[in-house]
């Protein structure tokens, strides 16, 4: 179905444009303005040009060191959770019951963590992992594993990662399940006639059909984990030391904690630029996948 060209459609888009422009463009301009200045409080601002940006990208300065370290931690975190959540999500989606009331029960339970306010997710794990009152922390210590996410950086990392797996694996699983549901039964019958093994069915039928949703899942998870703030902040507060301080946490520390507006604004812009680039790749890949799909569907 080809779309018709109609410039009047702009009138329909105008409300969205205005609302989003009001809450996106105006604040972004403020950020750009701040990023070029220095402040000593009392609303006094001094021109600083690209000074903050230079400092930001130079690891030897305080600001640059903190930014690059948190960026590294954040990238590592994103990669680890992707490596766990994507395979686990696929396995869970393949384990969904076929029919009956259990399907609805599983879907609702899977979606439950997604609907919990993020700081409550943090609170749940903060409590769950505590060695004195939390089931997990208490059990681990009882069987002789010295586990304390408040003082041990490795334990803090494990807690934050397990929490994210708990929180978001369901998203990957639900998306894969939707992809799997769109496979016609005839495909499986054909595979059975050909005597295909379980693994062959997965590789030749299920995986290709999940391509699109998996792409969405990976990119959504990458971007959301790259901006993670609330959950690790509640659990570890970025500690012990700086070991779980991700980019957003560092940014809020500088902006609202130290009120260093110039530095925070420069950091914001670079941070936003990284997200924008990833987002552009996402969009291009998605729209290309969409246009490639059509001739295939026509052939089938």
């Amino acid at each position: 179905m080809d779309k018709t060209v109609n410039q009047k459609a702009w009138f329909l888009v105008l409300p969205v444009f205005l609302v989003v422009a009001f809450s996106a463009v105006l604040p972004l301009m403020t950020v750009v303005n701040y990023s070029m200045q220095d402040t000593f409080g009392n609303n006094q601002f001094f021109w600083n040009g690209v000074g903050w940006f230079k400092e930001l990208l130079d690891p030897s300065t305080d600001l640059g060191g903190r930014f690059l370290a948190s960026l590294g931690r954040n990238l590592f975190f994103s990669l680890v959770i992707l490596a766990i959540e994507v395979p686990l999500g696929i396995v869970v989606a393949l384990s969904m019951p076929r029919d009956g009331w259990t399907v609805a029960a599983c879907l609702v339970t899977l979606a439950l963590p997604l609907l919990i306010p993020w700081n409550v997710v943090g609170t749940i794990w903060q409590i769950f992992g505590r060695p004195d009152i939390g089931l997990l922390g208490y059990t681990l210590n009882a069987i002789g594993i010295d586990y304390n996410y408040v003082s041990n950086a490795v334990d803090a990392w494990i807690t934050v990662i397990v929490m994210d797996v708990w929180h978001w694996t369901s998203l990957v699983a639900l998306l894969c399940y939707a992809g799997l549901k769109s496979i016609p039964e005839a495909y499986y019958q054909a595979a059975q006639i050909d005597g295909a093994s379980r693994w062959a069915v997965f590789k030749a039928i299920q995986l290709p059909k999940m391509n699109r949703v998996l792409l969405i899942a990976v990119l959504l998870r990458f971007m959301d984990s790259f901006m993670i703030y609330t959950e690790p902040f509640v659990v570890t507060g970025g500690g012990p030391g700086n070991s779980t301080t991700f980019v957003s946490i560092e940014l809020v520390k500088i902006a609202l904690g130290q009120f260093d507006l110039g530095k925070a604004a420069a950091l914001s812009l670079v941070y936003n630029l990284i997200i924008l680039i990833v987002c552009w790749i996402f969009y291009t890949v998605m729209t290309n996948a969409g246009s490639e799909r059509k001739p295939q569907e026509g052939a089938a």
Partner: protein
Amino acid sequence: MHSIPGRRLIMGLFLIFLLLPIYWLVNMSFKTNAEIVSTMTLWPHTPTLQHYKRIFTDESWYSGYINSLEYVILNTIISISVALPAAYAFSRYRFLGDKHLFFWLLSNRMAPAAVYALPFFNLYSAIGLFDTPWAVALAHCIFNVPLAVWILEGFVSGVPREIDETAFLDGYSFPRFFIRILVPLIASGIGVAAFFCFMFSWVELLLARTLTSVQTKPIAAIMTRTVSAAGMDWGLLAAAGVLTIIPGALVIWFVRNYIARGFALGRV
């Protein structure tokens, strides 16, 4: 759909993994603080409703829920009503800059909230909206409006174009066609989009906390008050947490068949 061997076991284990931390929170919310701190019990031995009672009778507590619901509902209404016409336009027409506009919208869905916290604070203070539900509702539009446009666009594209053409031939004006014919046809899509707006506004804390101070503090921010000089009031914290899970758990039932489609931004 064909599944893998041992699927019942895998599913069972995963569901237990999901439910165990939630169970622990519920369990704690029914315990007295003395029991929480002194012993490790798998279920409340001296069950109490004192924490829930406190939340429902103390205005500074239950007003938090009302404040949260207020801006969440406001945001959902704004998001859906501006997104509907736009979704129709993106689905049916090609116009100058449509692809760029769509990308720009998507990029806002992905913008880190931390970047906007401070400028929003300045902006809404300047126009006198700070500490009102409107500030949070408008701020949350930055990620909910793009999301609603994406989801609704998918549903509008599912409506055959012949229906539009027939309606216009029958003499329907555009607004009348929109409200009388299109909206009822994509009612389930509107429900799904509303659910997702509700959800993302409900779970977000950073912006909601930054843009409110006294009058409209969201429940999530009030929860942090349980830390006091006398130590942590764990039972109260747990009870407040349980109460924030309930609205989501209730609405999820109605959209269970559309959850995945919504998360895929209407693109499955």
